[in-house]
């Protein structure tokens, strides 16, 4: 007999939430804190959504997007800080004064 796996109705709302929050974290990564807050939340939700021995597909997406959002947000923070520092103390800042 050729056996097939019976898949249940997918009702893992945590994985769905993780995916949504992860995508939002990428969208808001240009804001300093948005990406970090939502990204870390997406990673936490993805970790908590694992009720099997493997990750749900949407949880994987949420996890990946959350990490990317956090990294982008951190990069944005670094860039802004470097630019502010340079504009205050370096030659870049002189460009503001005509």
């Amino acid at each position: 007999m050729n056996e097939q796996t019976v898949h249940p109705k997918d009702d893992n709302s945590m994985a769905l939430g993780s995916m949504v929050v992860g995508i939002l974290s990428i969208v808001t990564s240009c804001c300093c804190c948005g990406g970090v807050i939502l990204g870390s939340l997406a990673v936490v939700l993805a970790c908590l959504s694992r009720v099997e021995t493997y990750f749900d597909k949407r949880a994987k997406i949420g996890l990946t997007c959350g990490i990317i959002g956090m990294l982008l947000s951190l990069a944005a923070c670094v860039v802004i800080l470097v630019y502010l520092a340079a504009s205050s103390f370096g030659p870049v800042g002189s460009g503001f004064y005509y």
Partner: protein
Amino acid sequence: MDIKRSDLKLYARRSLQGNWGSVIGATLICMGITYLFVLALDAVLFAALGSGVKTLIGIFSAAQPAAAASPTGGLSVGTLILILVILYFVYLVVLLLMSVGYQRLYLDVASGQKAKVTTLFWAFAHKPWKFVLISVLIALLEGITAAPVYIMSVAAALSGGSGFAAAFLLVYEILFIIIYAYVLLTFSQFYLILVEDPEKGIFEALSESQRLMKGNRWKYFVLQLSFIGILFLGAFSFGLATLWLSPYMGCTLALFYLALKGSVPEKLKRSPAQTAPTGSYASYPYQERPVAQQGGSYPVPPQAGSYPPPVQAPPQPGSAPVPPQAGSYPPPVQAPPQPGSYPPPVQAPPQPGSYQTPVQTPPQPPMQPGAAPVPPQADAAPVPPQADSAPVPPQADEYQEPVYKEPEYEYQEPVYKEPEYEYQEPVYKEPEYKEPEYREPEYREPSDPPGQQ
């Protein structure tokens, strides 16, 4: 305890699936109540401060204090401070009882029950003063054990600091931390034991916790430490993730307690893909759930009263055969032949996947000696065999091929019933002591060693 740490966490996530709304709702309610209390405390505190400042100003400037016009309604500073102390005590008691309710909520979830928000207030109706008393005693013990540190610190500060005081503080604090951690780990299950059964005595719960944690302290410690990573990650979300993390941690610790007792619910050990009601397979136990057969056809679940196939009573000789009902199960069998008919009925070959149809043996009428079976005639009653008549050979054109009708299967959606888990208290049976039977040792005559003859 033979359950791995990762499995405990997996079970906690499974137990929380479907209960997240309730536990997060309980957290939000608890936060709201705490916030209201803090607001009230702040209001009384500022009123007392304001009243005190006005009193001081009145004393020093010898002006009339405008007590009647004050927002406190003319309450004195002492009254306000008394209200503040009482309110603070009520706040602590409510907070403590709600934290006990949290433990109960997590224990319910870990036990596989449906979470209810009202469980948050469970401790208000189940021996509330017992929990308050325990907390006061624990706080007193902590205060007494930490007292030497405070005394030595004050003494060292007053004396300008000395090497002896610094060394004493260092050694005492290290020892204090080690002993404190050991005691905490030993009695870590104390609250959960009392929450599970509030009727238990304090010392009984303490000794049970000690018994349960024997050999498992390090596992509990590592389990607590293993949450550091996800808590660190949750800290980036400015506390937003704690809404999910605190129930997760609470349920994991409650499951640790259940694992120590060996009463982790079996349904948490199974994958939700197997336990969830999934359409047409809902009524099957997860282990015996059938899978799709080749060709996409599913086995028809047995209906109540339809399996095994009903055994039909053999028709009486001479009675009219009962025609098969359309749509009945098992597949209709040809009409039983009339008594004395020839040839014997030919049954249709069983279809693949169909149940074995019951083989019905047609009743044979009592044959008279010398009688031969008479071929049946259409619409004719069975002709009784006549004696001394010549046997009539069967004619080929009288034989009718039985027509096999495909049975119609009506598939009915089975109804999923949630299996009920009832916890049964294990009954301890005293092992029966059997007196060993004494057998008289058989005396054997010692044989002569070889070579003595």
